[in-house]
Structures are given as C-alpha cells and as structure tokens.
C-alpha cells in the first residue's frame, strides 16, 4: 500500500475544490445586491411600510430560493 495511491490529478483537484468550496452563482455580484437594496429602500421611502415589508420579503425569497444568491 502506498500513500501515492490517493494522489489527485490536476483536473481532479480543480473539480474537488469547486465541489467543496461553494462558488458564487452567475449574477450573484455586489451590483445585484446593491440593486436589490436600492429597490427596497425606494419602496420604504415612497410607499407604506406594509408594502415595503412585502416587497423586501418577496425580493429575499426570489434571491435565496430561485435567484442569483441561491
């Protein structure tokens, strides 16, 4: 038995690192987050708190469940 039996090839190393460390999804960038925050603030300032909360929750659900932060 030899320890080298468990050596990874460069390709296996890359694939394993990508599997172990969650990679940011396409579109999940600070620009998107800032955009989402801007919309939420706009809603708070212009409309009522009820509408603001509903909109913020909807945005969060979108981002986390089906959107870019998934």
């Amino acid at each position, binding site marked *: *038995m030899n*320890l*080298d*039996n*468990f*050596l*990874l090839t460069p390709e296996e190393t890359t694939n394993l690192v990508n*599997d172990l460390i969650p990679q940011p999804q396409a579109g999940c960038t600070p620009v998107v987050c800032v955009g989402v925050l801007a919309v939420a603030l706009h809603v708070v300032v212009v409309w009522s708190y009820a509408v603001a909360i509903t909109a913020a929750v909807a945005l969060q659900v979108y981002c986390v469940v089906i959107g870019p932060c998934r």
Partner: protein
Amino acid sequence: MCRHCSVGAGPHHNEVLPVEYVEKALREASDIASIQVVVATGGEPTLFPKHLELLIKTAADFGFITRIVTNAWWARTLEMARRYVRRWRELGLEELNISFDDFHLEYLRLFGGEENVVNAARAGVEEGLRTVVAVTRTRETKIDASYVRKLLGDLAGEVIVTDDFISPTSRASGLYEEAVENLPPFGGCVHAGSEISIHPNGDVTFCCGHIITDPASAWFTRAGNITKEHLWDVVDRIQRNVLIWYIRFIGPHVLVKKFNEEEETKHLCHACHLLATKYWKELETRGKEWIINDLKKEVKGLNVRVLAK
C-alpha cells in the same frame, strides 16, 4: 525509557539526519513561503549538539522562527541552564519548549528533578525566548498544567503551559486503558498537511509523523524522502493527496468508524495508526474515488453540523 513515548524514542535510536541533508532541507524549505517555523525535536535533540547548533543557526539565517523541544536534562542548576540557553539564543533560537510530566520526571530525576524545568524556564525567559512547558497526561497522572504553574511560581505568568493527552501508539500503546479519549468534536487533524517532519533517514511525513517510527504504519505518513528528491516535490504531493485532505478536514477517526463501527479511537494519531495497520486493506479496496466522494458528502454534513452548533 519514557513509557508514554508515542514515537518510541530511546538510547537504541541514535540516528540523526546527516548534516548535508539538514542544510538541503532548510535551503529548500526557505523557498516554500508557507513554511515559517523550524522545530528540532526527537527524542532529545540536545544529545546531538553539533547538529542542533547547525540547525538553529542555519534556520535562523534563512529567516525561520526556531524552536527546540527538550526535556531539560541539561538544567540541573540555573547557571548550567543559562549557559545552554544563552548559546542557543546567540545562534538564533526563539522558542524553548520543555516537555514535562509524570513520565519524563521518572528519568529527569537522574539529572536533577523538577527543578530542572524551573531552571530551564527561567533561563528561557531571561534570554527573551518564548518559553513553553508542555505536559502530556493520562487519567492516572498527577502532573498537569496547574501543577506546573505552581512549580514555576513567579515565572508562571511569563511561561506558556499546555496540557495534552497521550496517543496510545508505539511504546505508549501499553497505556491504552488509562489514555483519555481526545478527539476534536468537528473536523480533523490540524497538523495534517500543514506541518511536515523530516526524520533521520530522510523520510518526510505530512504531519508531526508520530506513527512513522512503527514500521507497520510508516507507509501511511511517509510522503517522500529528502535524500532523494527536492522538498518542493514532496510538498506538492502532500497538497494533492485526497487522503490527507480527508484526515485534515474530516479526521482519521471518522474513517475508522466507517470501516468498523465498534472500533474505539483515543487520539487522532491512534486513528491513523489503526488505518495504517488494521484497515489498510479497506482503504486499498475502496480506493481514491471512494475517498473523494465520501469527502464531498462529509464536508456538506460538517457544514450543517457546524451551523447547528
């Protein structure tokens, strides 16, 4: 010979890494940015004064932090201790790590006694070294960190005292019953892949290498040999070895449990020893692909457990 020695050191082991390979190892290590500390350990490294002084001087010249691990047999009086420590400090030593516990004390009495520890620690502090007393325990031993702090008296605030537990491997396998189970609640061995040790025959291990002195388990931690290749090549293989990733992130004790639910492990080194000697066939049969897939599964589970904690 100390009953708790997990590397099986003693007078029958008088091998030492030849000088040319000490220099080669340090020169090659100096080109690897992540290697920052060089430790001389054994056995008792002060029994090879020429090698030790060369190691300290060369390592310091290359800019490494330098440390020696010793049982302080040379510190019967404060004057003797000062003479030794001053010499090492002048060569570039920065850290003095003194091993002291019930097991060492049995033999330290031949050269003085527990006063040696106080003398060595005082000389270390006086010379401005980072000074540590490391205690190794079982459930039966009486010396622990608080005992040492009392022994050190006025020095206690200036000396780091650490508690650790034995690994029941090599000669310490005779202490299996009194060994305390000492395994991390999450994750594996922080030493695997982040430390290497170079042994007198040139073998390089991917960790502190405790189990390599047992011929049956040597293959498991041996990643290369400094007398035959460049240290870079050995470190490169260590970084690309998925079994080492598993040991570091998940732990060898988790693998042991997968191979045999009933098996008891007391220490991470003990778990590696079991994998090397008792479950090597399991490792061979399941192979690299199985380790890769199980590592992915365990890392996901580990994230969930850490978040839950």
